[in-house]
């Protein structure tokens, strides 16, 4: 009787192990396509046009870039905020569209002006139409990499910024955009996501300042 019990116990254990392994193998096998797809397309952008650009912004050859207003407070690391602000400036400089670029820190706007062009910057900005770029950091999470390995839970990294283009003289909002960058890659890191956000901000500025914007159909760009 005891021998029979032992055999039964062993068989059940083996069956459970085999079943569990089979299920795991199956789930791994079926998740391969989505994992591969995610590695390629895992860095996604969703952008929403809040105020469509209606004016011709090609006349603006000077831009003032304000540091983003951080609404996430301590929930976003200081180095990520710095990377984002520096990245936006770098990307806009690389557009080679603006003759004059000034970077302004929100805390002490007067002192922190750093102009690209030598000379009297204040005179330059007053004389020519100047675009002001400012915005907010609305959402940030670094995600949970360990959960991304097992493809479970709400695990992805997210950064949401809201960007505004204004006319410096009139303070009129010329355009406003919400940009969310999501990273679902297993190999993802926050730096890459922040860099992508800076690229997207610069792309928005380029798109609107270098050509006449077609407001029709420019409401949202949700990648599905």
């Amino acid at each position: 009787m005891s021998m029979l019990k032992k055999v039964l116990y062993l068989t059940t254990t083996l069956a459970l192990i085999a079943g569990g392994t089979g299920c795991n193998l199956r789930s791994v096998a079926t998740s391969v396509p989505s994992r591969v797809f995610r590695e390629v397309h895992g860095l996604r952008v969703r952008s929403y046009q809040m105020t469509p650009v209606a004016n011709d912004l090609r006349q603006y050859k000077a831009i003032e870039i304000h540091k983003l207003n951080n609404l996430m407070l301590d929930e976003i690391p200081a180095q990520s905020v710095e990377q984002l602000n520096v990245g936006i400036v770098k990307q806009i400089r690389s557009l080679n569209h603006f003759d004059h670029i000034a970077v302004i820190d929100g805390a002490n706007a007067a002192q922190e002006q750093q102009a690209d062009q030598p000379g009297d910057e204040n005179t330059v900005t007053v004389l020519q139409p100047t675009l002001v770029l400012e915005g907010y950091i609305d959402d940030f999470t670094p995600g949970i990499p360990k959960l991304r390995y097992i493809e479970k839970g709400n695990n992805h990294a997210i950064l949401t910024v809201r960007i505004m283009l204004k006319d410096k003289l009139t303070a009129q909002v010329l355009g406003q955009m919400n940009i969310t960058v999501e990273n679902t890659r297993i190999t993802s890191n926050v730096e890459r996501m922040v860099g992508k956000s800076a690229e997207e901000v610069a792309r928005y500025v380029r798109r609107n300042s270098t050509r006449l914007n077609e407001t029709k159909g420019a409401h949202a760009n949700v990648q599905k």
Partner: protein
Amino acid sequence: MSKNKVTKRIKPILFLLTALVFSARAASARQSPSGQLQQAAAEHGAGVAVARWENRGPLKRYKGENGILSAKTLLLGGEFRVTTVMPFKGNLAEYHHLEITKPISLVGKALTPEVASRQVAKFKSQFESRRLFETVAIIDAYDPATASQRQHPSSADAPSAKSDDVDRAESLDAPIQSFDDLIAHDKRRALAEGAGQQPAADKTLVVVIEVLDYAKGSRLKQALPLDLAKSILTVRFRFYDKSTGEEIGRQVISGQSDGSSLLGPLSPRDGLSGVADGFIDQVTRRVAASEK
């Protein structure tokens, strides 16, 4: 096996099942707030309706939800994450009224008024079913600046002048007064104490909702193994004390459903379900902690 033997075996099983059903119903009546209210109403007779919505008794046993990974999210999906940007200040149990503003869209026209109304209606209905507050109302908008402006002049001038008068009249150096004056002083003191307690009992929590990210998603595309068309909703909740206009907490809650749960794209849950669960859970666990 003869018929008698079969009936003999079935009888105890039936009895056991019936007993189980009765005990389960009794237990659920004990646990659920609605059950308790029904019991209370029955005790007070059919004529006495339970007018107050609030019932925080069951909160003593409340355990918070894990929105990122739990049995519920594995089975049905609709997981959520909560980022507390500004930790809650003060005692949330003091608030007995809740006002939820209509969602402010920070995603342009992606959030239609119908979807916004559906979201706020879901929050309201879930709070009502949980009976955390006496009243739950939906308001169009809330401006904390006007509330603080309203509050400061009144709080700075009137009460201090009144309390000075009371202090002077009740000081030991004050002349002895008549019996009528003493009664009048007692009444004034009682009124002042009442006025001090009234706001605490009638405190209103205002929640301002800002939608940061929204994608409706597609169940058809979720069925493909390509990680497409997730249902996503990310909302920033700002919690205000209505009377002072002070922001007492700020959270970002994001819900999503991507068809990766056991039910897959057939799951009834979406991004909104996750956000609603997260929102209700966060408020409930703070009220519960304050009640304890």
